[in-house]
């Protein structure tokens, strides 16, 4: 084979591989959205079409009219937001303390945090459930927020620690030498620089709480308290599957995750490098 022929073959193989990867990753989403926007008779038509002949929001309307999707949505937003607030409120001061002060046991704490990675939800859930029942927190959103905070805190601490470590100590020292108090130094020097770290950590926390199935499944029994993942799972299991409506629910749950995700995409590799996100 000639050199240019070889190059062309290489390029073709390349395009083929990239297309296959794109297809494998994206096609299921495209199919979900197409199904969600089709009228019911078209959903089961043969041959199936990727682009809907008529685009309709009937599935979405049915979802809000006939199910408690709106309630689940509000619950999910509340629980995930509360988890982000609580996790950051605990993790940010702790990460600052771990990187800015010397005290006995500092390294042990940092290492011990990583060890909790070994505890998967399924190993914690049984005693956690018994504990929450005893405290009267089963079947409450508070119990769920606590569960997620416990789940997110280790990686939030770990991530924020690496972000704080990357902020030069000299900046803070300069502010303190110029007569600023420590709270002022934190407010005007550290916080602005730590913002990307807080955004990334907050996003990971939000996604984890937004996506979780197991804790919500076990802790919540009342229908009006359910979050989206269990709401959708129950919708699916309820009776004859209404595929159009189920796909519409999937499409709506994804929207905020993908939106948030695209905003922070540029920070993401940093978070990954620091060992963020579990699942």
């Amino acid at each position, binding site marked *: 084979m000639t050199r240019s022929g070889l190059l062309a073959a290489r390029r073709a193989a*390349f395009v083929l*591989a*990239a297309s296959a*990867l794109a297809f494998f*990753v*994206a096609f*299921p*989403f495209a*199919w979900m959205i197409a*199904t969600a926007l089709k009228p019911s008779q078209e959903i089961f038509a043969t*041959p199936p079409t990727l682009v809907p002949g008529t685009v309709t929001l009937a599935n979405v309307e049915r979802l809000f009219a006939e199910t408690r999707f709106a309630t689940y949505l509000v619950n999910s937003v509340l629980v995930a937001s509360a988890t982000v607030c609580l996790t950051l409120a*605990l993790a940010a*001061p*702790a990460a600052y*303390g771990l990187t*800015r*002060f*010397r*005290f006995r046991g*500092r390294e042990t704490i940092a290492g011990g945090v990583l060890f*909790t990675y*070994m*505890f*998967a*939800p*399924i*190993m*914690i859930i*049984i*005693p*956690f459930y*018994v*504990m929450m*029942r005893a405290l009267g927190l089963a079947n409450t959103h508070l119990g769920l927020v606590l569960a997620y905070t*416990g789940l997110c805190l*280790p990686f939030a*601490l770990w991530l924020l620690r690496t972000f704080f470590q990357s902020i030069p100590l000299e900046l803070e020292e300069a502010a303190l030498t110029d007569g600023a108090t420590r709270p002022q130094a934190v407010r005007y020097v550290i916080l602005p620089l730590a913002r990307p770290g807080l955004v990334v950590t907050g996003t990971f926390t939000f*996604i984890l709480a937004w*996506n979780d*199935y197991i804790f919500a499944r*076990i802790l919540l029994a009342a229908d009006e308290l359910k979050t989206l*993942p269990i709401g*959708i*799972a129950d919708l699916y299991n309820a009776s004859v599957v209404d*595929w159009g409506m*189920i*796909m519409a629910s*999937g499409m709506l*749950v*994804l929207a905020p*995750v*993908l939106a948030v*995700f695209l905003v922070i*995409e540029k920070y*993401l*590799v940093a978070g*990954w490098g620091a060992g963020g*996100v*579990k*699942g």
Partner: protein
Amino acid sequence: MRASPGAGRTGFLLVLPALLVLCALSAYPVLYGVWLSFFDKHSIFPGERFIGFANYLAVFADEDFWRSVWLGTVYAVTTIVLQLALGIGAALLLHQAFPGRNVLRAMVIFPYVIPTVVAIILWKWLLNSQFGLVNYALQAAGLVGTPISFMGRNWIMASLILVSVWQFFPFVVLAVLARLQTIPPELYEAATVDGAGAIRRFRYVTLPHLASVLFVVVLLRSIWMFTKFDTPWLMIQGGGAETYIRTLPIYTYLRTFAYYEAGRGAAMAVLMFLMLVAGAAVYFRLWRREEHL
């Protein structure tokens, strides 16, 4: 930093709230779980009775337990191997320059950040035996005569593996891609000058640099796949073939929340943890030996 008196105490006080919450929500449940495993305890009703190792003995005598360990191992090992193969391949591809690369890089991560329940309904729809697109395509291509029952007993494990690999391989892509970007291009140039082809460049330049990241990736993915609950659990629903993917986490859950045997469920959770620790110990040793070669 200025060494002012009491500075250490301020630092500790800042860490304390997070530490207390972690102890209450992570460490305490783990220890409480170990304690529970020695008791006969109903999952809902109060009261418990100390029974020593009886829960563990019952678990060891339970054939379904051993079967769930086997199914869980098959599931974890198969999905990890496939995730690594696909993930490394995709990362190498996405490391090259081509038009649309950044879009594809962002897209590849999608399956990993979506709720598991969405991944499941998505694939259950694609793999549906009556109206599924996959069956339609297979039949249209003349590959199968009658539709395949992907949620039936013969196919459910394969379907579960497919969905899991799709959902989790992006983690491998991101980790490997981040590392690939830090390999100095001069090394490849030098290797090329020395006459190394693509395969030898991969073997002698790329792989050694990936070793450390792959070590962590395999460790984390093993922990997470071996304890994976939501993907197989949601896959099981409504299929009628649940015993064919009843992995250890699933069986632990069932013992606790379907049979209401919290003590016995806790014992299985403790055993799961011990298996992980043992697996990790072997893994660390193997890795060290590999490095001495």
